[in-house]
């Protein structure tokens, strides 16, 4: 009975506080003549977004969607790069080579102990913006053009209809899956090495190549051309994108490296010794025995780092990379109602967080060793 009374009183108090705050907000907004609903999202944005097709006459809602896309763009590539770098550095920290070990430790200790905002600002203001202007841009192997206007990399340029090609992409994925299953079955029945990557990847590439020519070469691979004032062709990564990506990658990789190191140390020594006894080489031991077990241990904490990376991508606001936080900041400056805009921003990040948590939980369940 007392438990019930307490809970009811507690909920009552929480609701009263929330209602009080809500009342205050609506009161204040009304008195200032600001809308209290989300209809402002249908109004034209009134600002343009660099490096996108977004026009200032489009609605604020569209602007937020572009922001979400940009957040996803920098987060996904950042997660990929940080994972690769993190695993490499984590392994390097346990190298038998003294110099490699110390270099990896120096990297980790440096980037773990500096605010990620400073790292991003440093790359943006101190490195990317100081690259030579386009007229004097340096080119790497005639493929990549590096200048203070960003990085231009070779990319596909669309010249024809792509519908047929997309069909072949789907066919290729299906074929790769079927081949993969077939190879794995064969491994189980006959003990033949599966080589899934080789076979499935081969099937996919074959389908893509056939589709490419069957559809009449819908894409052309284009290398950027450097002009006096601009580059033509290729894909341009803006300086803001490049700096944010590099900063997030370096910072997150230093954290992932520590997790990977801990996970490798958590693999029982007997496993390493057994691998040595079987005569595996150092690389084989790492690739086939230690890492598969270590990475399973590392999944939950690394998933946490992925979440942090997505949240840290909000620091794009400091260097004017137009991800969702920057869009919110700009729209508030353009007289969008702050309360609603910030609530929407938080909702966007909650969706990101839930999505990543769902994916990594799924991966964790699939990869966890059963029966322990």
């Amino acid at each position: 009975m007392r438990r019930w009374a307490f809970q009811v009183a507690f909920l009552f108090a929480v609701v009263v506080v929330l209602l009080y705050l809500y009342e205050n907000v609506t009161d204040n907004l009304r008195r200032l003549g600001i809308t209290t609903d989300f209809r402002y999202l249908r109004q034209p944005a009134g600002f343009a977004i660099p490096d996108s097709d977004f026009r200032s006459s489009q609605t604020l809602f569209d602007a937020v969607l572009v922001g979400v896309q940009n957040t996803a763009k920098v987060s996904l590539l950042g997660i990929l790069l940080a994972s690769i770098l993190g695993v490499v550095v984590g392994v390097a920290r346990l190298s038998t080579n003294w110099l490699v070990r110390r270099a990896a430790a120096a990297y980790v200790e440096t980037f773990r102990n500096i605010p990620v905002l400073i790292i991003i600002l440093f790359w943006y203001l101190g490195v990317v913006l100081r690259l030579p202007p386009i007229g004097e841009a340096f080119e790497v192997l005639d493929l990549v053009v590096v200048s203070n206007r960003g990085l231009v990399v070779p990319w596909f340029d669309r010249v024809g209809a792509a519908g047929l090609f997309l069909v072949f992409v789907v066919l290729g994925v299906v074929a790769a899956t079927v081949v993969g299953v077939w190879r794995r079955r064969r491994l189980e029945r006959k003990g033949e090495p599966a080589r899934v990557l080789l076979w499935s990847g081969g099937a996919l590439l074959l389908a893509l190549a056939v589709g490419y020519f069957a559809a009449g070469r819908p894409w052309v691979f284009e290398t950027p051309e450097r002009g006096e004032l601009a580059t033509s062709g290729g894909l341009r990564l803006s300086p803001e994108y490049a700096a944010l990506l590099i900063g997030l990658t370096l910072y997150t990789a230093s954290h992932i490296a520590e997790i990977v190191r801990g996970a490798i140390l958590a693999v029982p020594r007997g496993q390493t010794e057994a691998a040595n006894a079987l005569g595996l080489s150092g690389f084989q031991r790492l690739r086939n025995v230690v890492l598969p077990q270590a990475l399973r241990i590392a999944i939950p904490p690394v998933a946490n780092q992925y979440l942090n990376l997505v949240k840290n991508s909000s620091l794009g606001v400091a260097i004017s990379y137009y991800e969702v936080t920057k869009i919110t900041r700009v729209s508030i400056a353009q007289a969008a109602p702050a309360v609603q805009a910030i609530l929407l921003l938080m909702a966007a990040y909650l969706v990101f967080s839930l999505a990543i948590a769902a994916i990594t939980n799924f991966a964790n369940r699939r990869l966890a060793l059963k029966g322990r």
Partner: protein
Amino acid sequence: MATRVDTLEPLPSPEPERPSARRLSPSEWARENLFGSKLDAVLTVAFALLLAWALYRVGRFVFADARWEVIDRNITNLMVARFPRDELWRIWAALFVLAASLGFGAGAAATSRRRDLEEGRAAPPGRTEVLRRAGPVVALVAVLLWFAGSLEATILTLGVAAVAAGAYLGGRRVRWRAARFAPIVLGGIVIAFLIVAAFGGVGWDNWGGLLLTLFLAVAGILISFPLGVLLALGRRSSLPAVRVVCVAYIELVRGVPLIALLFMGAFMIGFFLPPGVDRPSLVTRALIALVLFTAAYVAEIVRGGLQSVPRAQIEAAQALGLSPLRVTGLIVLPQALRNVIPGLVGQFISLYKDTSLVFIVGLTDLLGVAENITKQPDFLAQGLIVETLLFASVIYWTGSYWMSRESQRLERRLGLGER
């Protein structure tokens, strides 16, 4: 273990003697650690070249190319920003009080450690330990003083160090348990704060630079700690209503970036107040955002500690007839909080780094000053941001590296993760 009846079982043989680690000669060491195989040799050479190049570039920048004048002339700005210059004595006085209380606390901690030593629970300190532990901080202070280039500041700093050392020796004379000196350190922090802010002092709205960074970090963790403990207890409560509310708060806050909360502080808090009430200053609002943010993370850390307390402890307390409040306050929390000290230090370190985000909402913390001074007329558009960011990151780096080192030591000393 099975009961032993067989008296013929051989006596346990003495511990086999470990082969004593022979000191390797330099060439043997190099062969073992640098040139073990062909691949190793290639890696060694590649990394040696890479590191040499990096060191050369950084060294050349720091000692030759960098124009440090911007730091030289702004060192006071970087430390305290807009803090009125004729009130600076308050900060020095506060530093003396802090040195005394922290020194005393460290001394008392050393006493309890000496007892551990006598009873064989701790390893004796190495000869270079003090130097290694204090090294980074001493180096940082030296760099700051070099930039300040003022005799007065140097003398005052030496005075602060002397007071700390004296208090340390004094602290070693008391024979207290660890719990006793926590209030002394806390009291020292509070008195230091009052010296600066109260009695006709300068309110925190006018603080800036490193002072503001440290204030936000320390006040943030101190205020969010009780909140976090309450949230953690709420999350573990047997009452569903309390649990749901606490879980909702914790997960909501952990799902959004800090900058979103800081925006909330900057743009939204004013709307939450009843009409006619002035909204608090930007520093206060940023602090509120930091506290709301950190409380959720502290709650998760404390929850880990609560889960580490064996159930038997609670059952035993209940069997003794303690009320639920007393079970929590006297039995569970003291054991749980002891286990989460390293986690809390980690959270403090990340808060210390995260305070740099207040620069985005327009406060002049250390990073804010570092950015602003490159826009002074004398230094405008000369690309000095690299120098100032490097200077700021050295301060952040030293603090955070030093604290994480100390936290690892503490973890080892408390013997966490060994039970």
